[in-house]
Protein backbone atom coordinates (compact mmCIF):
# COMPACT_ATOMS: atom_id res chain seq x y z
CA UNK A 1 0.00 0.00 0.00
CA UNK A 2 1.45 3.34 -0.98
CA UNK A 3 1.09 6.36 1.22
CA UNK A 4 -1.20 8.13 -1.20
CA UNK A 5 -4.06 5.64 -1.07
CA UNK A 6 -3.95 5.25 2.68
CA UNK A 7 -6.79 7.28 4.18
CA UNK A 8 -5.43 10.03 6.38
CA UNK A 9 -5.77 9.55 10.11
CA UNK A 10 -7.85 12.69 10.41
CA UNK A 11 -10.26 11.42 7.79
CA UNK A 12 -10.67 8.09 9.54
CA UNK A 13 -11.33 9.75 12.90
CA UNK A 14 -13.78 12.20 11.35
CA UNK A 15 -15.55 9.39 9.52
CA UNK A 16 -15.79 7.34 12.72
CA UNK A 17 -17.15 10.30 14.69
CA UNK A 18 -19.76 11.27 12.13
CA UNK A 19 -20.48 7.60 11.53
CA UNK A 20 -21.26 7.10 15.22
CA UNK A 21 -23.50 10.15 15.29
CA UNK A 22 -25.26 9.10 12.09
CA UNK A 23 -25.75 5.57 13.35
CA UNK A 24 -27.35 7.10 16.45
CA UNK A 25 -29.75 9.19 14.37
CA UNK A 26 -30.57 6.25 12.13
CA UNK A 27 -31.21 4.05 15.15
CA UNK A 28 -33.72 6.65 16.36
CA UNK A 29 -35.35 6.71 12.93
CA UNK A 30 -35.84 2.95 12.85
CA UNK A 31 -37.01 2.59 16.46
CA UNK A 32 -40.72 1.66 16.65
CA UNK A 33 -41.22 3.82 19.76
CA UNK A 34 -39.76 6.90 18.09
CA UNK A 35 -41.88 6.31 15.01
CA UNK A 36 -44.96 6.01 17.17
CA UNK A 37 -44.23 9.43 18.66
CA UNK A 38 -43.48 10.94 15.24
CA UNK A 39 -46.70 9.47 13.88
CA UNK A 40 -48.53 11.58 16.48
CA UNK A 41 -47.41 14.54 14.39
CA UNK A 42 -49.30 13.08 11.42
CA UNK A 43 -52.41 12.69 13.62
CA UNK A 44 -52.13 16.30 14.76
CA UNK A 45 -51.78 17.49 11.16
CA UNK A 46 -54.80 15.48 10.02
CA UNK A 47 -56.94 16.60 12.94
CA UNK A 48 -55.88 20.24 12.58
CA UNK A 49 -56.59 20.31 8.85
CA UNK A 50 -59.91 18.49 9.29
CA UNK A 51 -60.85 20.96 12.03
CA UNK A 52 -59.90 24.10 10.11
CA UNK A 53 -60.58 23.19 6.51
CA UNK A 54 -64.10 22.43 5.28
CA UNK A 55 -63.96 18.93 3.79
CA UNK A 56 -66.07 20.11 0.87
CA UNK A 57 -63.83 23.04 -0.03
CA UNK A 58 -62.73 22.92 -3.66
CA UNK A 59 -59.08 22.87 -4.66
CA UNK A 60 -58.09 25.94 -6.63
CA UNK A 61 -58.79 25.66 -10.35
CA UNK A 62 -56.69 27.46 -12.95
CA UNK A 63 -57.31 28.95 -16.39
CA UNK A 64 -56.22 26.76 -19.33
CA UNK A 65 -53.19 29.02 -19.95
CA UNK A 66 -51.73 27.80 -16.66
CA UNK A 67 -51.41 24.19 -17.87
CA UNK A 68 -47.79 22.96 -17.57
CA UNK A 69 -46.17 21.98 -20.86
CA UNK A 70 -43.85 19.60 -18.97
CA UNK A 71 -46.14 17.72 -16.54
CA UNK A 72 -43.87 15.08 -15.10
CA UNK A 73 -44.86 11.40 -15.09
CA UNK A 74 -43.61 9.90 -11.84
CA UNK A 75 -43.46 6.39 -10.39
CA UNK A 76 -44.42 3.70 -12.89
CA UNK A 77 -44.68 5.08 -16.43
CA UNK A 78 -45.45 1.85 -18.27
CA UNK A 79 -46.61 -1.22 -16.28
CA UNK A 80 -44.93 -4.27 -17.74
CA UNK A 81 -47.54 -6.94 -16.88
CA UNK A 82 -48.78 -8.98 -19.87
CA UNK A 83 -52.41 -8.21 -19.05
CA UNK A 84 -51.80 -4.50 -19.00
CA UNK A 85 -49.73 -4.52 -22.18
CA UNK A 86 -52.51 -6.49 -23.93
CA UNK A 87 -54.99 -3.76 -22.86
CA UNK A 88 -52.67 -1.08 -24.24
CA UNK A 89 -52.35 -2.96 -27.53
CA UNK A 90 -56.15 -3.26 -27.78
CA UNK A 91 -56.71 0.40 -26.89
CA UNK A 92 -58.40 -0.67 -23.61
CA UNK A 93 -61.40 -2.00 -25.59
CA UNK A 94 -61.93 -5.02 -23.35
CA UNK A 95 -60.82 -3.25 -20.18
CA UNK A 96 -63.45 -3.08 -17.46
CA UNK A 97 -63.41 -1.26 -14.17
CA UNK A 98 -64.76 -3.40 -11.36
CA UNK A 99 -66.43 -1.70 -8.41
CA UNK A 100 -67.12 -4.24 -5.68
CA UNK A 101 -66.62 -5.11 -2.06
CA UNK A 102 -69.15 -3.70 0.39
CA UNK A 103 -71.70 -2.57 -2.20
CA UNK A 104 -75.29 -3.60 -2.96
CA UNK A 105 -74.77 -3.83 -6.74
CA UNK A 106 -71.22 -4.52 -7.95
CA UNK A 107 -70.45 -2.68 -11.19
CA UNK A 108 -68.32 -3.62 -14.14
CA UNK A 109 -67.85 -0.67 -16.48
CA UNK A 110 -66.19 -0.40 -19.86
CA UNK A 111 -64.25 2.73 -20.70
CA UNK A 112 -67.17 3.79 -22.92
CA UNK A 113 -69.63 3.34 -20.04
CA UNK A 114 -67.34 5.27 -17.73
CA UNK A 115 -67.32 8.13 -20.23
CA UNK A 116 -71.15 8.18 -20.09
CA UNK A 117 -71.17 8.60 -16.30
CA UNK A 118 -71.59 12.03 -14.64
CA UNK A 119 -68.30 13.79 -15.34
CA UNK A 120 -66.28 16.80 -14.30
CA UNK A 121 -63.42 18.75 -15.88
CA UNK A 122 -60.88 20.63 -13.79
CA UNK A 123 -57.55 22.37 -14.24
CA UNK A 124 -55.69 21.76 -11.01
CA UNK A 125 -52.22 21.76 -9.52
CA UNK A 126 -50.61 18.40 -8.87
CA UNK A 127 -48.30 18.46 -5.85
CA UNK A 128 -45.77 15.66 -5.70
CA UNK A 129 -44.49 14.50 -2.31
CA UNK A 130 -41.00 15.10 -3.73
CA UNK A 131 -41.66 18.83 -3.81
CA UNK A 132 -42.42 19.72 -7.43
CA UNK A 133 -45.79 20.73 -8.87
CA UNK A 134 -47.35 20.80 -12.33
CA UNK A 135 -50.74 22.01 -13.55
CA UNK A 136 -52.91 19.80 -15.74
CA UNK A 137 -56.44 19.57 -17.05
CA UNK A 138 -58.38 16.48 -16.08
CA UNK A 139 -61.71 15.10 -17.15
CA UNK A 140 -63.22 12.06 -15.55
CA UNK A 141 -66.19 10.32 -13.98
CA UNK A 142 -67.07 11.64 -10.56
CA UNK A 143 -66.47 8.89 -8.04
CA UNK A 144 -69.36 9.89 -5.74
CA UNK A 145 -72.21 9.19 -8.20
CA UNK A 146 -70.56 5.91 -9.25
CA UNK A 147 -70.45 4.79 -5.63
CA UNK A 148 -74.10 5.83 -5.19
CA UNK A 149 -74.97 3.72 -8.23
CA UNK A 150 -73.22 0.71 -6.71
CA UNK A 151 -74.93 1.34 -3.35
CA UNK A 152 -72.33 1.60 -0.60
CA UNK A 153 -73.17 -0.64 2.34
CA UNK A 154 -73.31 1.10 5.73
CA UNK A 155 -70.31 -0.75 7.17
CA UNK A 156 -67.99 0.48 4.37
CA UNK A 157 -65.51 3.13 5.51
CA UNK A 158 -62.83 3.28 2.81
CA UNK A 159 -62.48 3.02 -0.93
CA UNK A 160 -59.52 0.93 -2.10
CA UNK A 161 -57.99 1.27 -5.57
CA UNK A 162 -56.06 -1.66 -7.02
CA UNK A 163 -53.70 -0.87 -9.84
CA UNK A 164 -51.94 -2.57 -12.73
CA UNK A 165 -48.48 -1.45 -11.73
CA UNK A 166 -46.06 -3.45 -9.63
CA UNK A 167 -43.32 -1.31 -8.13
CA UNK A 168 -41.62 -4.07 -6.22
CA UNK A 169 -41.58 -7.73 -7.22
CA UNK A 170 -42.73 -9.84 -4.26
CA UNK A 171 -44.16 -13.33 -3.91
CA UNK A 172 -47.21 -12.17 -1.96
CA UNK A 173 -48.11 -9.30 -4.30
CA UNK A 174 -47.41 -6.67 -1.64
CA UNK A 175 -45.39 -4.77 -4.25
CA UNK A 176 -48.51 -3.98 -6.28
CA UNK A 177 -49.69 -0.38 -6.19
CA UNK A 178 -52.85 0.28 -4.23
CA UNK A 179 -54.32 3.22 -2.36
CA UNK A 180 -57.16 3.88 0.04
CA UNK A 181 -59.20 7.01 0.72
CA UNK A 182 -62.12 7.65 3.04
CA UNK A 183 -65.73 8.08 1.94
CA UNK A 184 -65.86 11.83 2.54
CA UNK A 185 -62.98 12.37 0.12
CA UNK A 186 -64.51 9.82 -2.27
CA UNK A 187 -67.68 11.93 -2.50
CA UNK A 188 -65.84 15.25 -2.93
CA UNK A 189 -66.97 16.83 -6.22
CA UNK A 190 -63.39 17.07 -7.52
CA UNK A 191 -62.64 13.41 -6.80
CA UNK A 192 -62.78 11.86 -10.26
CA UNK A 193 -61.59 8.83 -12.19
CA UNK A 194 -59.76 10.77 -14.88
CA UNK A 195 -59.72 9.33 -18.40
CA UNK A 196 -58.63 12.53 -20.19
CA UNK A 197 -55.60 14.69 -19.52
CA UNK A 198 -55.17 18.04 -21.25
CA UNK A 199 -58.10 17.25 -23.62
CA UNK A 200 -56.61 13.96 -24.86
CA UNK A 201 -57.04 10.37 -23.65
CA UNK A 202 -54.94 9.83 -20.53
CA UNK A 203 -51.45 8.74 -21.69
CA UNK A 204 -49.97 5.48 -20.43
CA UNK A 205 -47.24 7.41 -18.60
CA UNK A 206 -49.91 9.21 -16.55
CA UNK A 207 -51.98 6.12 -15.69
CA UNK A 208 -54.13 5.03 -18.67
CA UNK A 209 -56.92 4.15 -18.87
CA UNK A 210 -57.95 5.89 -15.63
CA UNK A 211 -56.22 7.44 -12.66
CA UNK A 212 -57.69 8.82 -9.49
CA UNK A 213 -57.68 12.58 -8.97
CA UNK A 214 -57.85 13.42 -5.28
CA UNK A 215 -57.22 17.15 -5.28
CA UNK A 216 -56.10 18.63 -1.92
CA UNK A 217 -53.74 15.72 -1.25
CA UNK A 218 -50.34 14.72 -2.62
CA UNK A 219 -49.74 12.86 -5.86
CA UNK A 220 -49.05 9.44 -4.40
CA UNK A 221 -52.68 9.21 -3.25
CA UNK A 222 -53.82 9.57 -6.87
CA UNK A 223 -53.44 5.97 -8.00
CA UNK A 224 -52.68 5.44 -11.69
CA UNK A 225 -53.71 2.39 -13.79
CA UNK A 226 -56.82 1.75 -11.65
CA UNK A 227 -58.22 -1.71 -12.44
CA UNK A 228 -60.51 -2.48 -9.51
CA UNK A 229 -62.24 -0.50 -6.80
CA UNK A 230 -63.39 -2.08 -3.58
CA UNK A 231 -65.41 -0.68 -0.71
CA UNK A 232 -63.90 -1.91 2.54
CA UNK A 233 -64.39 -1.54 6.27
CA UNK A 234 -60.68 -1.50 7.12
CA UNK A 235 -57.42 -1.60 5.19
CA UNK A 236 -55.57 -3.65 7.80
CA UNK A 237 -55.69 -6.76 5.58
CA UNK A 238 -54.28 -5.04 2.47
CA UNK A 239 -50.57 -5.06 1.71
CA UNK A 240 -48.74 -4.37 4.98
CA UNK A 241 -51.83 -2.75 6.47
CA UNK A 242 -51.00 0.93 6.21
CA UNK A 243 -53.47 1.83 3.48
CA UNK A 244 -51.30 2.08 0.38
CA UNK A 245 -48.16 1.01 -1.43
CA UNK A 246 -46.17 4.04 -0.28
CA UNK A 247 -47.86 4.14 3.11
CA UNK A 248 -46.57 0.57 3.62
CA UNK A 249 -43.10 2.03 2.97
CA UNK A 250 -43.30 4.89 5.45
CA UNK A 251 -45.36 7.57 3.74
CA UNK A 252 -48.24 9.18 5.60
CA UNK A 253 -51.78 7.90 4.90
CA UNK A 254 -53.08 11.43 5.25
CA UNK A 255 -51.32 13.34 2.49
CA UNK A 256 -52.84 16.79 2.94
CA UNK A 257 -49.44 18.24 3.78
Amino acid sequence: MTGSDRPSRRRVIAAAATGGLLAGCDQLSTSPQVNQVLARGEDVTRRAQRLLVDRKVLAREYPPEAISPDFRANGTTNPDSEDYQAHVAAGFQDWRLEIGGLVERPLSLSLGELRQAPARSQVTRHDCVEGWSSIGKWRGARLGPLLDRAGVKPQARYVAFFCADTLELTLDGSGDYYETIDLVDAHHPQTILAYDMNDAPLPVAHGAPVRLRLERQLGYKMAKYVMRIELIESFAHLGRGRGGYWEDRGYQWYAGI
Partner: protein
Amino acid sequence: MAYLLRERRRGAAVEVYRHPWVVRIAHALNAVCLLVLLLSGLQILNAHPAFYWGEVARFDAPFAAIEATPAADGSLRGELRVLGASFDTTGILGVSPSADGGAEARAFPAWLTLPGYLDLGAGRAWHFAFAWLLVGNGTLYLLHGLASGRLRAELLPSRADLRHLGPSIIDHLRLRFPTGEAARHYNGLQKLAYLGVIAIALPAMLLTGLVMSPTVHAWLPWLGTLFGGRQSARTIHFISAMALVAFVAVHLAMVLAAGPLNELRAILTGWYRLKPTRTPK
Protein backbone atom coordinates in the same frame (compact mmCIF):
# COMPACT_ATOMS: atom_id res chain seq x y z
CA MET B 1 -45.91 48.96 33.55
CA ALA B 2 -42.18 48.96 33.08
CA TYR B 3 -40.42 45.65 32.62
CA LEU B 4 -37.56 45.48 35.12
CA LEU B 5 -34.79 42.92 35.27
CA ARG B 6 -34.10 41.57 38.73
CA GLU B 7 -30.49 41.96 39.77
CA ARG B 8 -28.11 40.67 42.43
CA ARG B 9 -24.54 41.33 43.52
CA ARG B 10 -21.84 38.69 43.27
CA GLY B 11 -18.78 40.24 44.91
CA ALA B 12 -17.94 43.29 42.90
CA ALA B 13 -20.03 42.16 39.93
CA VAL B 14 -23.66 42.83 39.22
CA GLU B 15 -25.76 40.04 37.71
CA VAL B 16 -29.10 40.61 36.00
CA TYR B 17 -31.79 37.98 35.56
CA ARG B 18 -31.83 38.23 31.79
CA HIS B 19 -33.69 35.07 30.79
CA PRO B 20 -36.78 33.96 32.74
CA TRP B 21 -37.29 30.16 32.84
CA VAL B 22 -39.94 30.21 30.12
CA VAL B 23 -37.44 31.82 27.77
CA ARG B 24 -34.67 29.40 28.74
CA ILE B 25 -36.83 26.35 28.07
CA ALA B 26 -38.16 27.89 24.86
CA HIS B 27 -34.60 28.58 23.71
CA ALA B 28 -33.48 25.00 24.34
CA LEU B 29 -36.52 23.50 22.61
CA ASN B 30 -36.08 25.94 19.76
CA ALA B 31 -32.48 24.84 19.25
CA VAL B 32 -33.47 21.16 19.13
CA CYS B 33 -36.42 21.84 16.80
CA LEU B 34 -34.38 23.92 14.37
CA LEU B 35 -31.65 21.28 14.19
CA VAL B 36 -34.14 18.46 13.51
CA LEU B 37 -36.09 20.61 11.04
CA LEU B 38 -32.91 21.49 9.16
CA LEU B 39 -31.65 17.90 8.87
CA SER B 40 -35.07 16.41 8.05
CA GLY B 41 -35.70 19.29 5.64
CA LEU B 42 -32.53 18.45 3.74
CA GLN B 43 -33.69 14.81 3.67
CA ILE B 44 -36.95 15.97 2.06
CA LEU B 45 -35.04 18.19 -0.34
CA ASN B 46 -32.97 15.20 -1.46
CA ALA B 47 -36.13 13.85 -3.15
CA HIS B 48 -36.10 16.74 -5.62
CA PRO B 49 -33.05 18.99 -5.21
CA ALA B 50 -34.13 21.74 -7.60
CA PHE B 51 -35.70 25.14 -7.04
CA TYR B 52 -38.08 27.13 -9.20
CA TRP B 53 -39.96 30.42 -9.06
CA GLY B 54 -43.71 30.59 -9.60
CA GLU B 55 -46.56 28.17 -9.04
CA VAL B 56 -45.15 25.14 -10.88
CA ALA B 57 -41.85 23.51 -11.74
CA ARG B 58 -40.11 24.23 -15.04
CA PHE B 59 -38.02 21.09 -15.05
CA ASP B 60 -35.60 22.19 -17.74
CA ALA B 61 -34.97 25.61 -16.20
CA PRO B 62 -34.56 25.42 -12.43
CA PHE B 63 -33.38 28.53 -10.63
CA ALA B 64 -30.94 26.33 -8.73
CA ALA B 65 -30.28 22.60 -8.66
CA ILE B 66 -27.93 20.01 -7.23
CA GLU B 67 -27.01 17.26 -9.66
CA ALA B 68 -24.78 14.23 -10.06
CA THR B 69 -23.33 13.90 -13.54
CA PRO B 70 -21.02 11.17 -14.82
CA ALA B 71 -17.53 12.51 -15.56
CA ALA B 72 -15.44 11.40 -18.55
CA ASP B 73 -13.59 8.79 -16.45
CA GLY B 74 -16.85 7.18 -15.34
CA SER B 75 -16.78 8.62 -11.82
CA LEU B 76 -19.63 10.76 -10.53
CA ARG B 77 -19.29 14.50 -10.26
CA GLY B 78 -21.41 16.53 -7.83
CA GLU B 79 -22.57 19.83 -9.18
CA LEU B 80 -24.42 22.84 -7.84
CA ARG B 81 -26.03 24.99 -10.51
CA VAL B 82 -27.31 28.45 -9.70
CA LEU B 83 -28.64 30.75 -12.40
CA GLY B 84 -26.58 29.10 -15.10
CA ALA B 85 -23.33 29.05 -13.10
CA SER B 86 -21.96 25.64 -12.18
CA PHE B 87 -19.83 24.72 -9.17
CA ASP B 88 -18.06 21.41 -8.58
CA THR B 89 -19.26 20.22 -5.19
CA THR B 90 -18.18 16.57 -5.36
CA GLY B 91 -17.84 15.14 -1.86
CA ILE B 92 -20.51 17.32 -0.31
CA LEU B 93 -23.35 18.24 -2.68
CA GLY B 94 -24.53 15.94 -5.47
CA VAL B 95 -22.08 13.15 -4.75
CA SER B 96 -20.89 12.18 -1.27
CA PRO B 97 -19.41 9.17 0.54
CA SER B 98 -21.84 6.30 1.01
CA ALA B 99 -22.04 4.01 4.04
CA ASP B 100 -19.88 1.36 2.31
CA GLY B 101 -17.11 3.84 1.55
CA GLY B 102 -17.98 4.38 -2.11
CA ALA B 103 -19.55 7.43 -3.70
CA GLU B 104 -23.30 7.95 -3.65
CA ALA B 105 -25.36 10.25 -5.84
CA ARG B 106 -27.43 12.29 -3.40
CA ALA B 107 -27.95 16.03 -3.12
CA PHE B 108 -27.11 16.49 0.56
CA PRO B 109 -24.66 14.09 2.26
CA ALA B 110 -25.67 11.54 4.89
CA TRP B 111 -24.22 13.62 7.74
CA LEU B 112 -26.57 16.50 6.86
CA THR B 113 -29.81 14.52 6.66
CA LEU B 114 -32.17 12.88 9.12
CA PRO B 115 -32.29 9.95 8.82
CA GLY B 116 -28.84 9.49 7.29
CA TYR B 117 -30.10 6.99 4.70
CA LEU B 118 -32.48 8.15 1.98
CA ASP B 119 -36.07 7.97 3.29
CA LEU B 120 -38.46 10.72 2.28
CA GLY B 121 -41.33 9.36 4.41
CA ALA B 122 -39.20 9.29 7.57
CA GLY B 123 -37.84 12.77 6.81
CA ARG B 124 -41.38 14.08 6.51
CA ALA B 125 -42.44 12.39 9.76
CA TRP B 126 -39.55 14.06 11.66
CA HIS B 127 -40.12 17.39 9.92
CA PHE B 128 -43.83 17.71 10.66
CA ALA B 129 -43.62 16.40 14.23
CA PHE B 130 -40.93 18.95 15.10
CA ALA B 131 -42.69 21.69 13.14
CA TRP B 132 -45.66 21.22 15.47
CA LEU B 133 -43.33 21.30 18.48
CA LEU B 134 -41.76 24.51 17.16
CA VAL B 135 -45.17 26.11 16.62
CA GLY B 136 -46.30 25.18 20.15
CA ASN B 137 -43.05 26.39 21.65
CA GLY B 138 -43.12 29.63 19.67
CA THR B 139 -46.72 30.30 20.64
CA LEU B 140 -45.98 29.91 24.36
CA TYR B 141 -42.87 32.09 23.99
CA LEU B 142 -44.81 34.86 22.24
CA LEU B 143 -47.69 34.74 24.72
CA HIS B 144 -45.24 34.99 27.60
CA GLY B 145 -43.25 37.75 25.92
CA LEU B 146 -46.32 39.82 25.13
CA ALA B 147 -48.05 39.30 28.48
CA SER B 148 -44.93 40.03 30.55
CA GLY B 149 -43.90 43.00 28.44
CA ARG B 150 -40.48 41.40 27.91
CA LEU B 151 -40.69 41.39 24.13
CA ARG B 152 -41.45 45.07 24.03
CA ALA B 153 -38.91 46.08 26.66
CA GLU B 154 -36.03 43.84 25.66
CA LEU B 155 -36.41 43.27 21.92
CA LEU B 156 -38.07 46.34 20.43
CA PRO B 157 -35.25 48.68 19.42
CA SER B 158 -35.55 52.24 20.77
CA ARG B 159 -34.79 55.35 18.72
CA ALA B 160 -31.46 55.59 20.52
CA ASP B 161 -30.69 51.96 19.61
CA LEU B 162 -31.35 52.68 15.94
CA ARG B 163 -29.30 55.89 15.99
CA HIS B 164 -26.43 54.00 17.54
CA LEU B 165 -26.62 51.16 14.99
CA GLY B 166 -23.64 52.28 12.87
CA PRO B 167 -21.12 52.42 15.73
CA SER B 168 -22.65 49.23 17.14
CA ILE B 169 -21.97 47.34 13.89
CA ILE B 170 -18.35 48.54 13.92
CA ASP B 171 -17.96 47.52 17.58
CA HIS B 172 -19.30 44.05 16.78
CA LEU B 173 -16.94 43.65 13.84
CA ARG B 174 -14.06 44.56 16.13
CA LEU B 175 -15.46 42.11 18.69
CA ARG B 176 -15.75 44.86 21.29
CA PHE B 177 -18.86 44.30 23.32
CA PRO B 178 -20.69 46.63 25.71
CA THR B 179 -19.70 46.41 29.36
CA GLY B 180 -21.19 47.67 32.60
CA GLU B 181 -24.61 49.34 32.47
CA ALA B 182 -24.53 49.36 28.66
CA ALA B 183 -24.62 45.54 28.75
CA ARG B 184 -27.71 45.42 30.98
CA HIS B 185 -29.96 45.27 27.94
CA TYR B 186 -29.50 43.97 24.42
CA ASN B 187 -27.95 46.49 22.06
CA GLY B 188 -29.69 47.59 18.88
CA LEU B 189 -27.98 45.08 16.64
CA GLN B 190 -28.87 42.20 18.95
CA LYS B 191 -32.47 43.37 19.17
CA LEU B 192 -32.77 43.58 15.39
CA ALA B 193 -31.17 40.16 14.90
CA TYR B 194 -33.41 38.43 17.46
CA LEU B 195 -36.48 40.30 16.30
CA GLY B 196 -35.64 39.39 12.69
CA VAL B 197 -35.61 35.72 13.62
CA ILE B 198 -38.75 35.90 15.76
CA ALA B 199 -40.83 38.23 13.62
CA ILE B 200 -39.58 37.56 10.09
CA ALA B 201 -37.54 34.39 9.50
CA LEU B 202 -39.53 31.92 11.62
CA PRO B 203 -42.97 33.21 10.52
CA ALA B 204 -41.71 33.07 6.91
CA MET B 205 -40.66 29.45 7.46
CA LEU B 206 -44.06 28.59 8.90
CA LEU B 207 -46.08 30.34 6.22
CA THR B 208 -44.05 29.10 3.24
CA GLY B 209 -44.24 25.62 4.76
CA LEU B 210 -48.02 25.86 5.00
CA VAL B 211 -48.25 27.13 1.41
CA MET B 212 -46.74 23.83 0.24
CA SER B 213 -49.61 21.83 1.80
CA PRO B 214 -52.21 21.02 -0.88
CA THR B 215 -55.03 21.12 1.69
CA VAL B 216 -53.96 24.54 2.97
CA HIS B 217 -53.76 25.65 -0.67
CA ALA B 218 -57.42 24.70 -1.16
CA TRP B 219 -58.31 26.50 2.07
CA LEU B 220 -56.26 29.71 1.65
CA PRO B 221 -55.26 30.00 -2.02
CA TRP B 222 -54.27 33.67 -1.53
CA LEU B 223 -51.51 32.63 0.86
CA GLY B 224 -49.72 30.90 -2.00
CA THR B 225 -50.25 33.89 -4.24
CA LEU B 226 -48.73 36.09 -1.55
CA PHE B 227 -45.44 34.21 -1.89
CA GLY B 228 -45.63 34.04 -5.69
CA GLY B 229 -46.81 30.43 -5.96
CA ARG B 230 -45.98 27.06 -4.45
CA GLN B 231 -42.55 26.68 -6.01
CA SER B 232 -41.59 30.22 -5.00
CA ALA B 233 -42.73 29.44 -1.47
CA ARG B 234 -40.58 26.29 -1.50
CA THR B 235 -37.57 28.29 -2.67
CA ILE B 236 -38.17 31.00 -0.05
CA HIS B 237 -38.58 28.24 2.57
CA PHE B 238 -35.05 27.06 1.75
CA ILE B 239 -33.55 30.56 1.57
CA SER B 240 -35.08 31.41 4.97
CA ALA B 241 -33.67 28.17 6.37
CA MET B 242 -30.21 29.15 5.12
CA ALA B 243 -30.68 32.61 6.66
CA LEU B 244 -31.46 30.90 9.98
CA VAL B 245 -28.34 28.73 9.62
CA ALA B 246 -26.30 31.91 9.04
CA PHE B 247 -27.93 33.51 12.08
CA VAL B 248 -27.09 30.52 14.28
CA ALA B 249 -23.48 30.54 13.03
CA VAL B 250 -23.05 34.23 13.87
CA HIS B 251 -24.96 33.78 17.14
CA LEU B 252 -22.61 30.99 18.26
CA ALA B 253 -19.53 32.93 17.13
CA MET B 254 -20.71 35.95 19.15
CA VAL B 255 -21.28 33.76 22.21
CA LEU B 256 -17.69 32.54 21.93
CA ALA B 257 -16.34 36.04 21.35
CA ALA B 258 -18.36 37.72 24.10
CA GLY B 259 -17.42 35.26 26.83
CA PRO B 260 -18.89 31.78 26.51
CA LEU B 261 -19.02 31.06 30.25
CA ASN B 262 -21.08 34.13 31.08
CA GLU B 263 -23.34 33.56 28.07
CA LEU B 264 -23.81 29.88 28.92
CA ARG B 265 -24.57 30.69 32.56
CA ALA B 266 -27.15 33.20 31.37
CA ILE B 267 -28.94 30.81 29.03
CA LEU B 268 -28.85 27.96 31.59
CA THR B 269 -29.57 29.80 34.86
CA GLY B 270 -30.92 33.11 33.62
CA TRP B 271 -28.24 35.20 35.39
CA TYR B 272 -26.03 37.37 33.20
CA ARG B 273 -23.01 39.08 34.74
CA LEU B 274 -22.34 42.66 33.72
CA LYS B 275 -18.67 42.97 32.98
CA PRO B 276 -17.13 45.82 34.99
CA THR B 277 -16.47 48.83 32.81
CA ARG B 278 -12.82 49.44 32.11
CA THR B 279 -11.98 52.67 33.87
CA PRO B 280 -9.35 54.84 32.27
CA LYS B 281 -6.34 55.20 34.51
